[in-house]
């Protein structure tokens, strides 16, 4: 009886997926390019470029100094090679570090003044930059507002619902704007979670970040709507280095969504972002990502190199952070959203689906650093490899001696589709007190033949059947996503696996 029930639910959910997939047809549907006049800084990175980016953003002196300090460190650093990733040497001098649509020369005062081509770009991506709009795919339910900060190559083109958010005291704007308008907040928190010297890519980002989003939720405020950032790399040979800083003051709550796409190109593009989250007492932050950068073609030509540092610092007691990620894009993914559980009774959660198909390579996971007493963390990671792809879960769980009575549960499951791909698990578990419990489980298996056979016998073709089984495999993570994203993610799971069977 129970079995029948679960099957029914699953069938219901996944029928939608399959319909969406059919509707979406094409393989990478965001591969087009917006033809728009761009302004570039010269290729390569140097102190001059750092100064130029800072000047373009009208930054105060302290911000420039901060960037320069990072740059000077970066020059001394070497690229980390420990990840299970193989890619040709990146020439950091052959990248544009700053690209901005010409029409953004004079900052538009409101969305009405934004270049229609840019607005059309986001409309085509299904991102509503009109304030009354809601995200595609959600019907029936009462109108749900989502505020969007849209980042196009190096600059933020617009942020919606700012006025309404301001009424609640929420600050949601581009980070360049925040540096100008709220320097005291930025100065206090930037680099406090991911310091300039953190790692090669974060240090580079600290030097050359051009824009990104800034969020401040004041004490006791539950953010009245979901906030989201949408990143689009458009220009060729351009690196995107955005920096996001989220501060949730005491007792506040915010749910934040992040999406990303890029055009199809046969050269690789670099994306090295930093996300810092500060969570104070009793506050809660949910951060959801659907990463759908262009993955390159079947032969591994082109695609985004995605080297991202994301970290949340649960500074206050009873603070909570939840990372949910669906990683389907990018040729290379190097990303470990982490939680520092400093406050007593703070909680960190990490839910991840990483899909690698064709020649994609993903090395992703999380770190849960337990410092406070009674802290809790949970990791659920689902890795799917198909084609010739390599997918690695790399994670660290650390229980410090002071983190008494803490708890971690980790589950990482890998699914292999085809005999040319690889699935790897590299967890680091460090337990330094005995009142804490740490449990780690990992399994690797292939798509179950019996399940496939069952689906086929009900009239599904092989690709539909695989999509259904994979969505079932990912269910625990999909359920952790906000509804709009869950729909998109479910569709993406199926699309990403196209061509992986038969």
């Amino acid at each position: 009886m129970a079995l029948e029930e679960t099957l029914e639910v699953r069938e219901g959910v996944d029928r939608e997926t399959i319909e969406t997939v059919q509707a979406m047809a094409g393989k990478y549907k965001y591969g087009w390019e917006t033809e728009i006049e761009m302004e570039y800084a010269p290729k390569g990175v140097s102190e001059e470029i750092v100064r130029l980016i800072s000047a373009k953003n009208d930054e105060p002196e302290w911000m420039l100094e901060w960037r320069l300090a990072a740059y000077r460190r970066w020059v001394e650093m070497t690229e980390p090679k420990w990840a299970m990733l193989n890619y040709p040497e990146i020439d950091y001098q052959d990248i544009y570090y700053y690209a901005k649509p010409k029409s953004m020369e004079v900052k538009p005062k409101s969305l009405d003044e934004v270049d229609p081509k840019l607005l059309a770009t986001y409309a085509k991506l299904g991102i509503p930059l009109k304030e009354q709009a809601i995200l595609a795919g959600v019907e029936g339910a009462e109108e749900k507002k989502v505020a969007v900060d849209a980042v196009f190559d190096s600059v933020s083109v617009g942020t919606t619902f700012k006025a309404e958010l301001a009424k609640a005291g929420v600050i949601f704007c581009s980070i360049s704007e925040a540096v100008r308008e709220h320097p005291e907040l930025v100065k206090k928190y930037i680099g406090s979670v991911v310091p300039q010297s953190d790692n090669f890519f974060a240090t580079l980002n600290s030097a050359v970040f051009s824009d990104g989003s800034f969020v401040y939720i004041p004490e006791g405020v539950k953010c009245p709507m979901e906030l989201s950032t949408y990143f689009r790399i458009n220009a060729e040979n351009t690196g995107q280095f955005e920096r996001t800083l989220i501060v949730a003051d005491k007792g506040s709550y915010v749910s934040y969504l992040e999406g990303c796409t890029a055009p199809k190109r046969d050269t690789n593009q670099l994306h090295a972002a930093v996300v810092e989250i500060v969570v104070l007492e009793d506050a809660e932050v949910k951060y959801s990502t659907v990463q759908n950068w262009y993955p390159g073609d079947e032969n591994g030509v082109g695609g985004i190199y995605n080297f991202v540092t994301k970290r949340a610092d649960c500074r206050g007691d009873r603070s909570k952070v939840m990372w949910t990620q669906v990683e389907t894009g990018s040729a290379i993914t190097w990303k470990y959203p982490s939680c520092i559980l400093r406050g007593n009774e703070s909680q960190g959660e990490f839910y991840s689906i990483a899909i690698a198909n064709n020649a994609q390579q993903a090395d992703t996971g999380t770190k849960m650093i337990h410092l406070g007493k009674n802290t809790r963390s949970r990791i659920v990671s689902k890795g799917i490899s198909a084609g010739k792809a390599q997918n690695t879960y790399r994670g660290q769980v650390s229980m410090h001696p002071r983190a008494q009575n803490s708890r971690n549960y980790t589950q990482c499951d890998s699914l292999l589709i085809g005999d040319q791909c690889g699935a790897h698990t590299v967890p680091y578990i460090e337990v330094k007190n005995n009142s804490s419990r740490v449990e780690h489980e990992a399994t690797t298996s292939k798509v179950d033949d019996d399940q496939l056979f069952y689906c086929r016998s009900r009239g599904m073709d092989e690709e539909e059947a695989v999509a259904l089984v994979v969505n079932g495999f990912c269910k625990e993570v999909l359920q952790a996503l906000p509804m709009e994203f869950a729909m998109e993610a479910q569709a993406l799971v199926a699309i990403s696996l196209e061509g992986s069977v038969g």
Partner: protein
Amino acid sequence: MALPQAKLDQLSARIAGLHFPATGWQGKARGEALERLGAMGLPGKRDEYWRYTDPTALTAPETKAVEGRGEAAFESIDAVKLVFVDGVFDAAASDDPALAGVEITRLAEVADIHWAGDLYGQLEAAGQTPVQRPLAAIGSAFATDGVLIRATAAAGRPVALVYRSESYSSDVILHHVVKLEEGAELTLLESGDAAARLLTVMEVDVAKDARFHHVRSQGRTPERLVATHIFARIAEGALFKSFTVAANGVLTRNEAVLDIVGDDAVAHVAGVAVGDGRDFLHDDTVFITHGAERCESRQVFKKVLKNGATGVFQGKILVKPGAQKTDGYQISQSLLLDGDSQFLAKPELEIYADDVKCSHGSTSGAIDDTALFYLRSRGVPEKAAQSLLVLAFLAEALAEIEDEAIAEDLRARLEGWLDRHDG
């Protein structure tokens, strides 16, 4: 790539004065091992597989003398005993090595032409990729002695290697080679304290349908340093099992590198470590490669730690492309009896074949209060209740030993340890 001068100097200091006979096949094999070593240098704290265990005590040129009180295990087991005193075979203290179906020779005494010429240092060399194991190369280049065992049929009795240390200031390096021909079967026991600092390499070649059982009880001298390496090649339908009990000691690093090359083979490696005190560090580093179809591997490691003891587990299952129907299992667990002890684990899977079933689990925690309360409420005194729960925790690993008499011997030793260390 040449080593930097500092690393060369460190290496020269470590190997200065070590035993290095340069003639015959041994000389050739030892020379090759020295070459490998020269290219690698000694392990350092920054090496990925030494991140949890500081190798300094093993790489230092000198080692300090220790007060020994080690004793051999398996006294009650009827076996052919081969005794090594301070790293040198002692014929007078040993049994007659005649055993039907088994050919036993001493490394320090073999002729220029010997079956082991094809094996000595070879499995160790193969085991240097993808992870370098410089200490093992030291074991091949500078072994003071060892045994070469070739089994052609099922051995009637186990062979027991018994280590004794009389000077306790000794720095002993042993290298054993074990070859099981098709269909042969052998049980090899190892026990006792060989030296203040012991470095061993055991190369095991298990041919088609052969069965090899290895059970080891590492000596109890509190201050000893040990680094052991097992390199095994496991052929079609063969079975390889290795089990180790370790108690006390300052630093124990047990590496096992198992290469499954034939279909339908089975490889199990398991161990129990009990440690008391801040100086205790026990490290199991296991690397199992599945290179054939329908093979099974199991890793079961349990550690009981108290008073600041540290347990390390690094285990990897590598499934090569085409190694379909692999069944790989790995569990590493620690029981921390107090708040000071720590458990550091890196259980890895690296899988390049799709039709496989691989899983690993790792847990760490204290004794279950509910279980303890239950036993107390049934009238079991606290200390006994705790011992009972510790033994229950170790049971899954002990179950890996097939021979009941041997398992019982080790269980008794563990109970004794628990008694002496207050539960």
